[in-house]
């Protein structure tokens, strides 16, 4: 038996709104800078995906696109949807919404891929004046978005989805 999470909806919503706001700078500002032989080039998260496609590595580009672009935005939308349906006691299939919640919970940490990639590149690519990679400000906001959404998913009490069902038809 697990104790119910306190103020679940309010906490989840507050974290989701914060994450959504931080998601804007996370995508607009550069996540890293590449200094190659004096020419400085900034790249955003989306820019990194485009660069990978240009390099001819479509599968890796897809990995980054899925984990850094699709997953975070889909996760935010899914959590907002879950909070919204619980708030208005929606009768929509609770089993489906439970599954949606479990998917969100499971994929949460995979969005950190891009942050780890930047970490490795910054540490490894330090070839004097030849080639240097520096982290950009978006790395901080993107890491914050990922962590906030993980905590938001954590503070959402999935049992709320089923509470309304019990009131409507108390078969179980």
């Amino acid at each position, binding site marked *: 038996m697990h104790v119910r999470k306190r103020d679940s909806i309010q906490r989840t919503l507050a974290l989701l709104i914060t994450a959504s706001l931080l998601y804007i700078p996370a995508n607009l500002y550069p996540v890293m800078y590449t200094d190659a032989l004096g020419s400085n080039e900034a790249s955003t998260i989306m820019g990194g995906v485009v660069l990978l496609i240009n*390099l001819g590595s479509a599968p890796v580009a897809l*990995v980054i696109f899925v984990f850094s672009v699709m997953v975070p935005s889909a996760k935010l939308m899914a959590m907002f949807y879950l909070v919204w349906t619980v708030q208005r006691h929606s009768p929509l299939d609770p*089993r489906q919404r439970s599954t949606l919640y479990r998917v969100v919970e499971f994929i949460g*940490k995979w969005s950190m891929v891009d942050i780890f990639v930047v970490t490795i590149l910054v540490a*490894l690519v330090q070839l004097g004046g*030849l*080639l240097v990679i*520096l982290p950009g400000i978006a790395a*901080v906001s993107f890491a914050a978005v990922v962590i906030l959404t993980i905590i938001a998913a954590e503070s959402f009490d999935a049992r709320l989805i089923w509470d309304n069902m019990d009131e409507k038809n108390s078969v179980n």
Partner: protein
Amino acid sequence: MDGEIACQSCDLLVNVAATRHGESASCPRCGCFLTKLHDDALHRVIAFSSIGLMFLAFASSYPFLSLSSSGVESAITLIQAPFALWSKGMPEVAVLVTAFIIAIPALVLMMMLTLCILITRGRYHSSLLPLAKGIFIGQKWSMVEVFLIAVIVAMVKIAAMATVTIGISFWAYGAFAICFTLAASSLDRYQCWQKIALLAIK
């Protein structure tokens, strides 16, 4: 022990007493995973977590990746990677990365090892509760498998600009990730609390 368990995701009471070795139970109403029974779970956790810790120690002490271009070379160890972020003005991200890929996973393995050794000794100990709580929170924040994927992506990204060489500790970290996953999946939440409860009432 009556074998009743309240589903974590919908609060339905399910009787899981009929679960046998190697079987797992899910909630009949919402489909959420409930428990998995392994008769030899404790020994598996002890084995995998001690080997995992050895691999991690190995992985932290040898070169992880190295890079060379036009005669200039640079190599990093696992520990050095987040430190570079720190010196480039991002201490908060550096701390988070270190926590997610090294500190928390190592702590979780140590806690799992201690917990299972204490339980196999068959006596109740006051540290069992905080240990179990810590393990299940820590497991959520361990990102070893995510980091492995990131290493591969990073290698593809720089392969066009310079030559990347994989160091021995990359493979050690991979082995550590496998051990970590096996240890974590062997320690079932419900069974673990049941065992602690049994020791507490004895």
